Every structure is written in C-alpha cells, then in structure tokens.
C-alpha cells in the first residue's frame, strides 16, 4: 500500500480520531500526540489493513484504548495537569459573547461526565455515528449505549438549566 492510498483511507476520519482523543484527554497537545500515535500504528500495520472490515471503527477503538492507557499511566504518575483550552474560535459567535460563554459551559459539563458517557456523546452527537457503530467501537451492546447516552444528555441538560437559571431563581 502506498502512502497516498493510506492517506485516502485515513484522511476522512483522522479528525474524528483527534476529537475523540481530545474528548478523553482534554489537552489539545496530548490529543494531537495520541492521534499521531494511532495513525502511525495504522501505518505500520498497513499490510493488515485490508483484513479489517471497518478501518474507521477499528481506529476509533484503537484511539479509545490508547487514550485509556494514557489516562491510566497519568493516574499512576499521580500528576494532574489542568488544561483550559476550551475556546473554539468561531467568528459567527462574535456577537454573542454570552452564548460563547455557555458553549464553554457545555464543554466543561461534558468534561465532568464519566469517560464512557463522554465518549458516547462524542461519537453520537458530534461525530453522528449510528448506534450499531458506536456499540462496535466501544464494545458494548446497543441498549447499553442508548441508556448511557440518555443519561449523559439528561445530565448535560440539567446542568445547563442550572447554569442558565443561575441568578434568576
């Protein structure tokens, strides 16, 4: 497999890998490193790539596992690095500073969710995978994904309502 062929396969989902890594690792730099690592692993095993039924789902699972490893090793080091790169530069939001602020709130709320729910929200609401794919990526069953998703969505809504009404009620 040549480099261009590989890139043609990988390009469509490399951003998804990156965003999932960022969702789990929070820091942009670490997410970039993780993405790089995942892509390099794919490249090194490119001979086996034809055997995979769904390269994208496979890479997502790989990313998930890689990030978990990273998180585990970080916990073992007992080092907590606080990252605060929440802003997502967007010009259309210029006029709505308030809204921008609440968008950051969403980021923070999602960050507080358990890892599994975070991943499901990421895969479903942001990357728009269907339930079967999510179940495959996360190695869960379909209903469990739905339940976790529903919980996550409700938690986000609740917390958002709280912050929304803060100072009013």
């Amino acid at each position, binding site marked *: 497999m040549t*480099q261009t062929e*590989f*890139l043609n396969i990988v390009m469509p989902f*490399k*951003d998804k*890998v*990156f*965003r999932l890594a*960022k969702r789990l690792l929070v820091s942009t730099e670490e997410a*970039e490193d993780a*993405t*790089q690592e995942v*892509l*390099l692993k794919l*490249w*090194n095993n490119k001979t086996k790539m034809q055997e995979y039924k769904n390269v994208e789902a496979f890479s997502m699972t790989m990313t998930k596992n890689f990030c978990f490893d990273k998180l585990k090793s970080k916990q073992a080091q007992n080092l907590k690095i606080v990252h605060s790169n929440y802003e*997502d530069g*967007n010009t259309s*939001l210029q006029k709505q500073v308030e*809204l921008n602020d*609440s*968008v950051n*709130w*969403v*980021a923070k709320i*999602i960050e507080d969710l358990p890892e599994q729910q975070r991943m499901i929200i990421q895969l479903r*609401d*942001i*990357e*728009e995978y*269907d339930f079967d794919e999510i179940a495959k990526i996360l190695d869960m069953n379909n209903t469990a*994904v*739905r*339940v976790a*998703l*529903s919980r996550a*969505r*409700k938690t*986000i*809504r609740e917390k*958002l*309502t709280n912050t*929304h009404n803060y100072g009013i009620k």
Partner: protein
Amino acid sequence: MVLNNIEKLIEKYENGETTLNEEAQLKHYFSQETVAPHLEMYKPMFNYFLLNKQEQFTKNVPLKTKKTFNYKWISVAAVAVLMLGFYLNSNVLNTNDCNELGTYCEPEQALNEVSKQLAMISNHFNKGTQSVNYLNTFEKGAATLGYLNEVENTTNIIFKK
C-alpha cells in the same frame, strides 16, 4: 406546530431514541438565531456539538516508508567480500611471492643480510653482558660479608662461657 414537533423530538432525544435524521433536525432548529425561550438552554448544547465538529487535526504525521534492514543479506554480503578478499590475496601470493612480502629473491643476498643482522645482534648483546659484569664485584662484597658469620660464631662461644 414546528415548536410542538421540536418539543417531542427533544423528549425523544433525551431518551436516546432519536434517529440521526431527527437529531439533524434538532441541530438545525437550534442553530437559528431565535429559539423558543423555554428551550433556550438547549441552544449552547447543540451549538457546541456543531462547533466541535469543525475542529480539525492539523499536525503532520511523519509517515516513513520504513525499510526493515535485512541482516541476513548483510551477512551474505560480508561472506562474499571475505571470499573475494581471500581469492585476490592468494592470487597475489602465486604471482610474485618475493618482494611483496619484504624478503629477498636471491639466496646469497639473503645470507649476506642475515649474517649482517646476526653480527649486529651479537654486538649489542656483548654490550649488555659487559654491564652485567659489574655484578661480579657485588658478589665479592657478599663474600666478605661471610666473615661476619665467623665473628658471630666466636661471640656465641664467648657468651656460652
């Protein structure tokens, strides 16, 4: 009517029962400037999802076409080089075997040279033995020391009595 529909969708959404299509509808609705005030709190949520989707991975990935070096072939090459070396070397030996190795071709010349060398060696050797001769004087000194023993003997005799 639209609002009614959206409210239903939201309920389904929270139960995790919406299809991707319906979620797209919701996202579209909440990306509008104005939404119903009681649904206001959903707006940042869906906006965030849309925003986040635009984030891209920009870092370059160094894809090296890694050629694993095959050590088997290195050894094969090394053996080949060695064999070639031996082969050439033996050729040289066969063709002109005197001057190349720093020896003399004529036996007489060789004899002359050897006797010259031997003479030189014996010369130097003699010089060495001369300096070793001094050891003889040392031996004399040691011999005179032997007389001390006799002195000791006599003192022993004296002290016994």
